[in-house]
């Protein structure tokens, strides 16, 4: 075999999560009452725009979760020998970024190093000047004159490819609408462009277009330049930012995966059984809640560090060690964050268990387990869903803070937090090294903003208490649409 797949702990859980997600999608599609709120999510323009961007990040994250060891050599008679280093599919795709290190900092799209160096001129004299980069812009012969047109040409070519891809996507969508409505493709496109469809295709396609153009421009430039510059050790910042996406997604999703069983079991248990079970569970979450979250996390991670450091033989490679530390961080974040959801579920269950249909079920002698799973759980699931999507973005932001404090992910792992932490001290330099910080914050902002927009759409669709308040003009338009003969 050309490679040997490696499944790290977090990878396994990510795949488990994806399988579960697929299962949920299939289940929801079969049940009309579940499809209804999701349809409302799909009809929210901001929510779907956020979902498009999220999908891009998830794609990057999943590609980065497929780990393997490449074949290093050996022949068939003695079996294959695989490299010690664990790489991911994303690493392989971005090999051109990863394997072109510079000496130290360089500005985005630059062709010179950030710092002056003493170079020897051909005639034997020495001078202080900015040396050319080893890879970035190395194909330029006279960079002062060629750099600007070259960057412009490549960026334009990338944008053109992105635009062509977008046109293909837009045509496919129009064709799909035309087939569904039975009208011509040109009319479908016109309705789409005017935003007259239920599904906010206009917002989706606009986001997709911006995303495609950006990605294609970056890809076109990345071949010959460092699009977002290089870091202190000369690593490409774009590569670092893309690698950080997986860590952010893992922390945002696996943490909730860890906390959900606790929160659901204990929350519903406390609300349903009341009495001493309720007392114990309430005591449990008040106690955990009363410890400041950062301190509990710090204490637990410090203890984890002691555990790892005293047992080096248990972790063969640094990747595995960092991965286990990441998983542990998720677990401890989960332990500190389940209390809020647990309290919400307890309150809701207390209310539901007094309703007539539960009383009837109890009168018929239905078992507790069956009442909980069949009658209570489905009626509190919307709370769980809203909590999960709302929690995601705050967890992504928390990772950066924790890594800064020194209790986040393993320092050897590239994450937004470690990127910011490494670049923070370079603020004082003159001229300023801003690109590492800007890239980390920019990627984080895009990820968190799209997650927030999507979460808001989900909350609006599932929370029965949220009154939908729309701007006046939109409301008028809706009124007019309702009055118009169908």
């Amino acid at each position, binding site marked *: 075999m050309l490679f040997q797949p490696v499944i790290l702990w977090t990878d396994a859980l990510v795949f488990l999560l994806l399988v579960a997600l697929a299962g949920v999608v299939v289940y929801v599609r079969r049940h009309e009452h579940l499809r209804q709120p999701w349809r409302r999510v799909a009809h929210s323009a901001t929510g779907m725009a956020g979902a498009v961007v999220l999908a891009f990040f998830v794609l990057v994250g999943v590609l980065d979760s497929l780990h393997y060891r490449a074949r290093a050599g050996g022949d068939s008679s003695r079996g294959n020998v695989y490299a010690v280093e664990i790489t991911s599919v994303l690493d392989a795709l971005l090999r051109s970024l990863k394997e072109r290190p510079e000496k130290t900092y360089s500005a985005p799209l630059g062709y010179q190093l950030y710092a002056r160096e003493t170079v020897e001129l051909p005639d034997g004299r020495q001078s202080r000047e900015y040396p050319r980069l080893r890879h970035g812009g190395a194909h330029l012969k006279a960079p002062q004159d060629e750099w600007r047109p070259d960057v412009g040409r490549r960026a334009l070519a990338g944008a053109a490819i992105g635009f062509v891809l977008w046109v293909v996507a837009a045509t496919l969508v129009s064709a799909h609408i035309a087939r569904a409505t039975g009208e011509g493709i040109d009319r479908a496109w016109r309705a789409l462009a005017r935003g007259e469809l239920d599904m906010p295709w206009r917002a989706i396609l606009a986001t997709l277009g911006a995303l495609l153009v950006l990605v294609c421009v970056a890809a076109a430039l990345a071949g010959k330049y460092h699009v977002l510059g290089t870091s202190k050790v000369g690593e490409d910042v774009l590569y670092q930012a893309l690698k950080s996406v997986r860590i952010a997604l893992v922390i945002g999703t696996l943490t909730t995966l860890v906390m959900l069983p606790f929160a659901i079991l204990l929350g519903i248990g406390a609300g349903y059984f009341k009495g001493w079970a309720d007392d114990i569970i309430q*005591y449990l979450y*008040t*106690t*955990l*809640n*009363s*410890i*400041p979250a*950062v*301190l*509990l996390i*710090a*204490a*637990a991670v*410090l*203890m984890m*560090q*002691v*555990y790892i*450091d*005293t047992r*080096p033989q248990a972790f063969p490679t640094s990747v595995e060690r960092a991965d286990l530390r990441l998983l542990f961080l998720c677990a401890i974040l989960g332990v500190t964050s389940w209390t809020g959801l647990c309290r919400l579920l307890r309150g809701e269950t207390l209310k539901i268990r007094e309703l007539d249909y539960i009383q009837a079920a109890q009168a018929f002698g239905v078992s507790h387990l069956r009442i909980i799973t069949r009658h209570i759980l489905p009626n509190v699931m919307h709370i769980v869903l809203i909590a999960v999507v709302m929690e995601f*973005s705050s967890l992504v*932001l928390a990772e*950066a*803070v924790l890594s*800064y*404090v*020194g*209790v986040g992910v393993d320092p050897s792992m590239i994450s*937004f937090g470690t990127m*910011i932490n490494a670049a*923070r001290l370079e*603020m004082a330099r003159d001229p*300023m090294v801003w690109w590492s*910080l800007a890239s980390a*914050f920019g990627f*984080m*902002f895009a990820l*968190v*903003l799209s997650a*927030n*927009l999507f979460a*808001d759409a989900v909350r609006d669709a599932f929370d029965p208490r949220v*009154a939908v*308040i*729309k*701007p*006046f*003009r939109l*409301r008028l338009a809706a009124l007019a649409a309702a009055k118009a003969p169908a």
Partner: protein
Amino acid sequence: MIAYIVRRVLYALPILIGVNLITFALFFVVNTPDDMARMQLGAKRVTPQAIERWKVERGYDKPLLWNSGASGLEQLTDTIFYDKSVRLFVFDFGNADDGRDIAHEILTRMGPSLAIALPVFLVGIAVNITFALMMAFFRASYLDLWGVVVCVAMMSISGLFYIIGGQYLVSKLWHLVPISGFAGGPDALKFVVLPVLIGVVGGIGAGARWYRTIFLEEIGKDYVRTARAKGMRESVVLFRHVLKNGLIPILTGAVVVLPSLFLGSLLMESFFGIPGLGSYTIDAIQAQDFAVVRSMVFLGAVLYIIGLLLTDISYTLVDPRVRLA
């Protein structure tokens, strides 16, 4: 009222005991003092004598829970659990691993922490309420819509960005205030302004949006419609009725964090070099000073419980319908 408070304080005891047990388990059972000593002294080439000396110096050489070597009550009291955990209940924090007195440090560092945290808290609430009321006044208009959009965008920006960006803009580009540091007396002002500003701006996104939903919920109620039906102007309805009633959840929600203000802000203090409790905690975490982290966990729990108690009391003060039973 007194009886209620006494009962609540008694309820708090088992919670504090629970916190104490959790921290004890985390710091002494999961990892033995031997592990900690090896970690502090460097993992390689550390002699058993050095470990023993490290433990004796810090009082970690005793048995964990039960000292069979001693006699009488000493069997219980001459242990790590009694020395390090039970004593926290009388706020006897002991010495940090570097030998300094923790209680003294906490007292001297509380002032600078409060100098930042209290203005951030007060100004933050005032600013958030102002923005939320404005959005509620122009509700369902494009001002409101874009206000919410800006709030969501501001929520999506990392807190670290506000700090780093603020320091760069105000201190480095405009040279208005020093980048970091702290001084006592009137000099403190110029060091405090920027952290407070950043703290307030950083909190607007989440705060204003949350308060807006509270006000909107209040606006939908019957008494507001009645007030309007009587012919009151919208501004009177908003400021005299909605604001007062909307303040109930806002204030009671804010009271719970009031005692925790003593702990200060971890990030802000470490970025601005303010010698408060937040930076103390971060330094302790980074230096892996377990005694300090343990003390801060306990102190944080105590303050949180006081906050819960204050919340319940403040409910009765601002809302006469609520009775403590």
